[in-house]
């Protein structure tokens, strides 16, 4: 009973750390993938007097990626339908050229305004539409998510560090007497902290495996049934095999550092 409690007391904080790490990785991947989507979805509408080539656009601003010509015929036909006495052809002739322009990076509103100015300065360009409102909201949200992510990381690092420090303090207090007695009777450092190493290693393994289990379940169970389409489309972001190595690695490093520090610290107390 008491030994189970002891194990839990170390497994749970380790779990907290590892769950935090994995959450962070998942969250990072999802945000990155979302940023990619936003970039792809964003377009600037440009109206020009005469037809223009994509190269001509790119020369105006090098953030411009792809340029597509909007088929004007279908728009015009709709309008023409309602008016009996004009032909589609006639309207088409008087209409300017429409282009949708895609960017190669995800930019802030201010940066997009710069591009807009560049485009407008060209004498051939009649009008530039940047969908500022919608874009701005998206961009803000994106930045907010990233800010939250970093806040989360900061908090995680902070608390994790403390959990480890606390666990070390506890070990030190609990094992000080034993370690001092063993040292004075000639036990090697390895033997003195042997118990700690054993407890710590098994606990690290248990914590890492549990975390892996939780996220594997999230990926194959929860995400698949979740309502959030973005997540459903990006299941693979949720758990990747390389995460197993990262988590095991982190758990081991934490454990080894803790145990070594504890046994060194205890040793320094000379007068028992």
């Amino acid at each position: 009973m008491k030994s189970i409690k002891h194990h839990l007391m170390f497994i749970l904080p380790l779990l907290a750390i590892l769950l935090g790490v994995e959450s962070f990785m998942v969250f990072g991947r999802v945000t990155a993938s979302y940023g990619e989507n936003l970039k792809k979805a964003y377009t600037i509408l440009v109206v020009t007097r005469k037809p223009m080539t994509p190269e001509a656009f790119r020369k105006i601003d090098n953030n411009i990626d792809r340029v597509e010509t909007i088929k004007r015929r279908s728009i015009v036909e709709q309008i023409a339908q309602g008016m009996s006495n004009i032909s589609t052809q006639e309207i088409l002739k008087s209409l300017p050229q429409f282009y949708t322009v895609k960017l190669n990076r995800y930019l802030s509103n201010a940066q997009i305004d710069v591009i807009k100015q560049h485009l407008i300065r060209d004498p051939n360009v009649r009008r530039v539409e940047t969908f500022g409102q919608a874009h701005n909201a998206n961009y803000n949200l994106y930045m907010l998510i990233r800010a939250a992510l970093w806040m989360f990381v900061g908090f995680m690092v902070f608390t994790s560090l403390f959990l480890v420090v606390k666990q070390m303090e506890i070990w030190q207090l609990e094992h000080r007497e034993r370690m001092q007695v063993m040292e004075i009777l000639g036990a090697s450092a390895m033997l003195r902290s042997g118990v700690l190493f054993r407890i710590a290693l098994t606990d690290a393994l248990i914590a890492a495996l549990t975390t892996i289990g939780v996220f594997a379940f999230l990926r194959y169970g929860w995400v698949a049934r979740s309502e959030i389409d973005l997540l459903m489309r990006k299941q693979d972001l949720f758990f990747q095999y390389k995460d197993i190595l990262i988590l095991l690695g982190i758990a081991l490093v934490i454990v080894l550092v803790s145990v070594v520090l504890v046994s060194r610290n205890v040793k320094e107390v000379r007068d028992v």
Partner: protein
Amino acid sequence: MPNVISTNRMTLAYDKGEKEIIRNATFRIKKGEFVFITGPSGSGKSTLLKSFYGQLVPKKGDLVVGGLDMTNVSKKNLQKLRTHLGIIFQDYKLINEWTVAKNIVLPLIIAGYNVDMQQTQAQRLLKHVKLEGKGDMYPLQLSGGEQQRVGVARALSKTPFLILADEPTGNLDEYSSNVIWDLMENACDQLGATVVVVTHRIPTIFNIPYRHFIIENGGIHEVH
């Protein structure tokens, strides 16, 4: 006989206090000798023993224990020396989370003996110090004198070449004290160990020859 402990103008002091507890002590203890050390409370008896097992490094002078220069001993050698000592501490220094039996065989655990040998030895020693049947209890469930006897049993568990005992009978009645003195005599006489015992009361009946050092005001002198 070779020297087991030899000092030359050795001075002992604790880090922070400038007070020198032992000053300019020069003496030799030969293999197989039995030495009693007495002196008033606070005179430096425990401090002297600490220097023998390397817990306190002499401020000045020389100290050689078991062939090792204790003023300049490597960690590794000190560790090795300690595994061959039998130390009885004034405050016992038992491990309270371990059973009595496990405490007794700690030196065997450190030396890497197998569990069978540990158990056999534990039973034998429990009998020697009259604690039969208490092997599965924990130190804090024992009386003061019983704890002290656990400390004695632990020190004897690996037949050490040098026994350093700090008031091994301080908490014992006459009968138990005699049991301990018999064990000490036996370790010295039969097993050839060198024994250094700090005590406030040299036993009235003692069957083997012994030397007697007195510590007073920082000096050590032998009573002849």
